[in-house]
């Protein structure tokens, strides 16, 4: 994943579009399947919305701020959650921990990942089980805080507390390698 497609797409390089789709298409399609499961939403429409926003805002990608994969995943997370909120109904879906509480890494072959992605995945495994659980439901399955509270059967306030504490602890674990010191451009929709 060392190759970066977004700067080329921002410059109008049409050949990078197909390469970008090949690189991230399956990832975003799988993410959309998980996030929109039970909502009856149109997966193709959702995935197209994600990629069009990625391509249009490709010029805002800053390699110093994070990896291209993280940039695309962040946009996908926000767009898919927005679509969840717009969906009118949701069928009952049963969510599992998917083995997240096991000690082994959930990222497959970590050697192929970007350094920040790999480090984040490894740091995640060092969190407490309850922190990992709520982060997993929020980011992997795209569940709302209320939905997590019902699924895990804990109060909503506890969900928020665990999410905040988990993210802050992740920052601390990645402190040496993660945060750049210079000012960063804002990601679209990050702080409204």
């Amino acid at each position, binding site marked *: 994943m060392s190759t970066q497609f977004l700067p080329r797409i921002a*410059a*109008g390089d*049409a050949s990078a*579009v*197909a390469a970008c*789709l090949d690189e991230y*298409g*399956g990832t*975003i*399609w*799988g*993410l959309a*399947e*998980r996030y929109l499961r039970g909502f009856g939403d149109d997966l*193709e429409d959702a*995935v197209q919305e994600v990629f069009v926003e990625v*391509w*249009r805002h*490709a*010029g805002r990608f800053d390699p110093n*701020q*994070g*990896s291209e*994969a*993280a*940039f*695309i*995943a*962040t946009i*996908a997370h926000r767009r898919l*959650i927005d679509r969840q909120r717009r969906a009118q109904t949701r069928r009952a879906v049963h969510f599992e921990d998917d083995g997240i509480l096991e000690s082994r890494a959930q*990222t497959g072959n970590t050697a*192929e*990942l970007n350094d*920040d*992605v*790999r480090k*984040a*995945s490894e740091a995640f495994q060092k969190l407490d089980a309850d922190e990992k659980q709520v982060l997993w439901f*929020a*980011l*992997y399955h795209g569940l709302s*805080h209320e939905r997590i509270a019902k699924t895990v059967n804990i*109060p909503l306030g506890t969900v*928020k507390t665990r*999410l905040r504490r988990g*993210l*802050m602890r992740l*920052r*601390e674990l*990645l*402190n040496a390698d*993660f*945060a750049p010191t210079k000012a*960063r451009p*804002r*990601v679209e929709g*990050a*702080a*409204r």
Partner: protein
Amino acid sequence: MNTAPGTSTAMANRLAELLADQATAPLTPTELSELDTLLHMHPQLQDSSGRPIDAESIAALTGSLIAGWSSAKTAAMPGDVRARLLNRGLDVARENAREASRHRTISISQPPPTANQVSDRVVRTGGSRPFSWPLLLTAAAACAALCTSVFMLVSSQRSQAEAVMARQQLETQQQESTDRLAAADGRISTFSATLEAQRQDANARLALAAEQFAALDQSNTELSAILQGERSTAAKAVAQATADLASADSEIESLQTRLAVSERKLTAAEDRISLLQQNPDNVQIAWTATDIPEAKGVTGDVVWNARLQQGYLRFKGLSANDPGKEQYQAWIFDEGRDPKFPVDAGVFDITLASKDEATGDLIIPIDPKLLIKNPAAFAVTLETPGGVVVTDKKRVVVLAPVAPPTR
């Protein structure tokens, strides 16, 4: 967590919380407004290591997690979807290319500054201007105004901070209320589920009872039908038995009647024979039939013993009478009495059963109501049922005049 001078720790914590919340789920409009206010007041929030805490750094962190997990759980995008997405991407790339070209054109077409403009910049920066007291006074006044403004701004920020704190407390209370409400909802849901289970159980038992009742009702109906049939059969049997009994009674009565008649016939015939054999002073006269239709072909005789005041009428060929309409009545004309008023000698009926089966004779005992001294004649008339006291002699059937005694 490090904060800028004048920033409360609580507000900084709240800002960090909202940024973390935003990274995992959409914020409510209220939270977004609060986040904007806090970002405006604390644009440079840092953690304990001096690293900036902002939406971008947290988003990059969550994005890395999502990207890492998702890379291990990819799904095959359908080929036709990929083709349509590719076309859309090519359109976007072309738009990007046009946009990039336009930016380059604007940059290239920007004219270089003129000498006057450069001079003006220099003037505004004050690089080569001579010292001026009026300018200094003006600057001092401006500084004073600026200090006042800064003081007011700080005061305003503190008020705003207090308002944010108050809102934060309200948010916390609201959150606690929401949690309690959720817990109450959970209990209500459990109670509702219990009630629903009880209701279903009651319905099931009700259905079972209804089914058993229906089965009983059906059995009852079948038993009623069977009972009705048995009752009908029994009623028919009883009716038949009653009819048979009535028939038997009738037959018995008929037999008894016939027996009585036979006995009477036998007795009367025996008595007559005995009277004839043992008493030579009997009078025996043959009947003479009259010309009325009932007398046609009638024969027989009358035997009378004056000493014994006993006698018998014997008929052959006398028609049977209907007792409801008329009866035969015997009369004795006594010489010592008025011939207009013969002595009643009894009422009798002639039926088929009263005849002697062997001879066809019919024997009737004479039953005189008065003492007969010297009978002149015997007669039989047809009269109204029960007989009459005085006959009008209009329907005389047979006569038997007694011949005067030879001297």
